[in-house]
């Protein structure tokens, strides 16, 4: 599997600094679990964080803080021993990688899809109070995703099958990023149904926000 469409630098930086909301973080983390290249970019971004911590001013620490921490550690009785590492016997057997599988409460077989008509199904994913909304989409082979626009950034991560949009193919692990100016109509590849995670109205932290009338996305 070769991923061609990655997470943009600015999103990696925002994930590393902890500024992304939960829904967008879910998509970024799920892509990371499939993409060693983006994990390396994340390592770089986190080392920047580490080196900025070294440069932080040294605030005064009250007496007794360290002792308070030691007594807290003793009270919780958690020891610094490693948890057993589970076997990787079933590598590749899941369509939904972590952390998405936890959020969806299982792999694709057990999902309770809701129909959107034309064979297209969706499943909203609960990401708390997050402004951006995450949902899984199921698009039958060869079908079009209903035409849609969105207010902010839309990120789509392919998990099964493929889709074609704006002159490019997107396959497992690929992320399509579309800002509010893009009015697009992805088409699922002919080989099998396309399953993807879509996050809409992700905050445009590093981009200028172009306001536009929001069109209802798939009736939600």
């Amino acid at each position, binding site marked *: *599997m070769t991923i061609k469409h990655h997470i943009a*630098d*600015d999103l990696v*930086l925002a994930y590393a*600094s*902890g500024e992304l909301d*939960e829904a967008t*973080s879910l998509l*970024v*983390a*799920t892509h*990371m*679990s499939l993409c*060693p290249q983006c994990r390396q*970019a994340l*390592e*770089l971004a*986190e*080392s*920047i*964080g*580490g*080196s*900025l*911590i*070294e*440069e*932080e*001013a*040294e*605030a005064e*620490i*009250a007496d007794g*803080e*360290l002792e*308070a*921490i*030691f007594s*807290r*550690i003793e009270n*919780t009785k*958690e*020891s*610094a021993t*490693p948890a057993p590492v589970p076997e*990787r016997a*079933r*590598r*590749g*057997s*899941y*369509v939904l*990688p*972590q*952390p998405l599988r936890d959020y969806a409460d299982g792999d694709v077989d057990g999902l309770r899809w809701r129909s959107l008509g034309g064979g297209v199904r969706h499943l909203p994913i609960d990401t*708390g*109070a*997050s402004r951006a909304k995450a949902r899984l989409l199921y698009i039958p082979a060869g079908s079009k995703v209903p035409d849609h626009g969105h207010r902010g950034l839309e990120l789509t991560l392919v998990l099964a099958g493929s889709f074609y949009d704006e002159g490019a193919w997107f396959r497992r692990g690929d992320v399509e990023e579309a800002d509010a100016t893009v009015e697009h109509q992805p088409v699922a590849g002919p080989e099998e149904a396309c399953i993807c995670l879509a996050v809409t109205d992700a905050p445009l*932290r*590093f981009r200028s926000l172009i306001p536009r009338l929001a069109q209802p996305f798939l009736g939600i």
Partner: protein
Amino acid sequence: MNTSNVIRLASMRSGFSQTGILAELSQAEMTEAEDRGARSAELDEMSAHLVAVAQEQDREAFSALFRHFAPRLKSYFRRYGEDDGRTDEVMQETFAAIWTKAHQFDPSRASASTWIYTIARNQRIDAFRRERRPQFDPNDPAFVPENVPDGEDSVTYRERAEHLSEAMAELSDKQREVLRLAFFEDQPHEAIARRLGLPIGTVKSRIRLAYGHLRTRLSPTAGGLL
């Protein structure tokens, strides 16, 4: 690291006084090289402390980590505008997490400050934002591991850390300032722009330039991190 830096550091380590080649260096350059050498030694020391906490539940090592990181992390948490009571609580949770998770620290992959930064960041999100922070799980069967060719060792962490610290030193003060604000403050770029009295476009382009510079300096063709 360029040749003159290597010579400088080697001379410093072997205890040479400021003569010969060293006499030609400006005081500023010397200080910079000394700082870098001292920082590098300190990083190794902190890394060893974390390993000692993981392997021997070493309280002395943990205390040394606390003395170094607690004052810095307190400043970091205070950036998020919570009162001191909340900050102290998150400090305690962070250090308790450092104690219980120390076994997850891999000194060949990250510096102690980077690893501790990620722990602090996650505690901050939990405590101040009350959100979950989704993370990938390297033990997940669906996880795609790195494809490291046999016998071909990737750049060591030590080398990567040196590249990064040099690349950070090359940033202008202005670039480092916006990078710090962008990284450490829960503020949109508009707020950073207001605070620094700069147009928003300038803030954005400085962040992009700073990050782009680090990324380029650490790219595989530059023999660096990525």
